[in-house]
């Protein structure tokens, strides 16, 4: 009998634990690695009294997680701005943002307006910008700079067996631009887009022998480049800058056809239970001095107005080396992905993977 009581107490305590973990005082944040560093969380918790629980993820997994619960389980999520309208139309996993609760003055205005425009569904705004960056080429300049100027140069025989890229949609988009096409212009036209993608498919199958491996995660790529097994790869700018700190030869280079620009946003999941905490977090991390801490942790710049002044000089120098002014103007920003486009790309990626 006594044993049973102990068991019951233990169970009820455990249940109570689960319930309290989901109460309104807790902010359950679904984000990317580096976007919620420990020191920022501590400052936020000390100032507001909310508790922050962080789950690290990526675009696809964020949407898959929210889809599985119909938009529950998290109070704030951070998908890229091009992945908001499509999933919202298809699955209804977000809720509109009340812009009156956002301190708009803290944002870089042009970026805020662009993101709001790109995430508007039926007159409601679903996203505000947070961190932005680009993807392009990370390379060992001593060994590959003469050959590799653009994505398609990764297929050059001079670097055979020493290149890598992801088998994901940015690779398809990047190759399409490097081959002189404009995939963003064809987003609305499924047939034109399919035709364009089949050309990219042929190119990628042709290029497959050149590739050492398709990398999956950032750490895997870091290992490959750091060990010298890979001399050039398609990757995010921060990856190149991090490696640059260890080896000055390695850095991020904006490809001739233009780096691909992304903006990660803040969105409210449809069944989020702590909207006040979510708004408090957004307004807190957009303060210039806090945003600079996130830049230091994630390696990417934020949409916070004036945060540049607090950024490390070394990072600024790397940014300026990778992005001369004309390269900044040449950045291709991702427009919203229409629902259903993934199916076309998925078929292409599967066939490339299967090709011998």
């Amino acid at each position: 009998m006594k044993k049973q009581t102990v068991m019951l107490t233990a169970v009820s305590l455990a249940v109570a634990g689960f319930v309290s973990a989901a109460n309104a005082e807790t902010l359950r944040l679904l984000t990317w690695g580096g976007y919620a560093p420990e020191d920022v969380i501590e400052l936020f918790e000390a100032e507001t009294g909310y508790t922050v629980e962080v789950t690290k993820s990526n675009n696809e997994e964020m949407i898959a997680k929210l889809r599985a619960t119909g938009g529950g389980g998290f109070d704030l999520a951070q998908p890229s701005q091009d992945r908001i309208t499509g999933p919202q139309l298809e699955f209804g996993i977000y809720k509109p943002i009340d812009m009156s609760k956002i301190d708009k003055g803290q944002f870089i205005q042009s970026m805020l307006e662009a993101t709001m425009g790109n995430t508007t569904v039926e007159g409601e705004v679903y996203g505000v910008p947070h961190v932005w960056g680009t993807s392009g080429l990370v390379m060992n300049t001593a060994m590959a700079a003469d050959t590799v100027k653009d994505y398609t140069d990764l297929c050059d025989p001079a670097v055979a067996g020493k290149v890598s890229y992801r088998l994901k949609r940015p690779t398809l988009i990047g190759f399409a631009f490097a081959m002189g096409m404009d995939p963003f212009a064809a987003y609305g036209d499924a047939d034109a887009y399919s035709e364009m993608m089949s050309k990219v498919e042929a190119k990628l199958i042709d290029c497959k022998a050149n590739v050492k491996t398709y990398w999956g995660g950032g750490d895997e790529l870091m290992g490959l480049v750091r060990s010298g097994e890979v001399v050039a790869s398609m990757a995010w700018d921060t990856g190149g800058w991090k490696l640059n700190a260890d080896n000055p030869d390695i850095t991020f280079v904006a490809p001739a056809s233009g780096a691909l620009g992304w903006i990660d946003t803040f969105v409210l999941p449809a069944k989020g239970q702590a909207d006040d905490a979510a708004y408090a977090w957004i307004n807190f991390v957009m303060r210039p001095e806090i945003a600079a801490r996130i830049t230091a942790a994630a390696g990417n710049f934020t949409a916070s107005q004036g945060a540049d002044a607090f950024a490390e000089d070394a990072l600024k120098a790397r940014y300026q080396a990778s992005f001369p002014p004309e390269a900044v103007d040449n950045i291709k920003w991702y427009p919203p992905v229409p629902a259903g486009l993934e199916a076309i790309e998925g078929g292409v990626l599967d066939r490339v993977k299967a090709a011998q």
Partner: protein
Amino acid sequence: MHSGARIGFFLLLTPLVLWLALLIVIPHIDMFLVSMRERVGVRQYETSFANYLTFFTEPLYIRTFVRTAVMSVLATIITLLIAFPVSLYIAKIVRGRLQQVLFVLCLIPFYVSELVRTFGWMILLRETGLVSNLLQWTGLADQPVEMLYNDAAIMIGLVYTSMLFMVVPLVTTLESLDDSVIEAGYDLGGNGFSVLREIIIPHAAPGIVSGSIVVFMLSLGNYLTPTMLGGKDSLWFTEMIYNQFIVRFNWELGAAFGFMLLILSSVIVWSMLKLTRQSLEETMA
């Protein structure tokens, strides 16, 4: 008294029924319903066999499906060939303390997670890895050798991962074989080969079959090893299911793939039992 026994029976039955219903039957029914949906427009779905049709009309999916099955069968056979002498040695040749030590040695790699074990293989096999450096140091190779990212690497990973699940049932069945039976075989004029064929293997058959079933299922459903060790040529069916669910947001096709995998594994296990004339009851006993 009588009713007390009945209550006891139902109390013991409840966890089993709950387990089966909540964790196996209901999710599968739900999965089947999802696989029968076809997306015709934004938030519009129709009931149809379209997803299964996609599977059968796209050669890529069939190829991956067959490849996964063949590689898993091959991994099972290789595991059996390696594990059988090992088990025979542990069960019949060594005695006492050494027997236990060897058995525990088989177990030790499983103290760490599968992810860590796979990373271990990556460190050994990669171009700048241990094996490559050793070959260069001994002069057997004059430049770095890449041993990762191919089918052989996948096979090594699969066999290594499932070794224990073959050794345990084999050791158990072989230990139950009376030594005097083997001696009688020799007394009656048998040699090593005929004793192995006529006495040891028939006796170990249930262990061989149950070990093979477990290893086959583990290989077929493995996601980590083929993805990490296989690199650009790793085509594994579980990876396709993951891609459909997570990357493509296409739950409908992913669910259909999941069902095809379930059917495939059931058919192969069933034919394996038929082929070896074993019944499931004998094997699991």
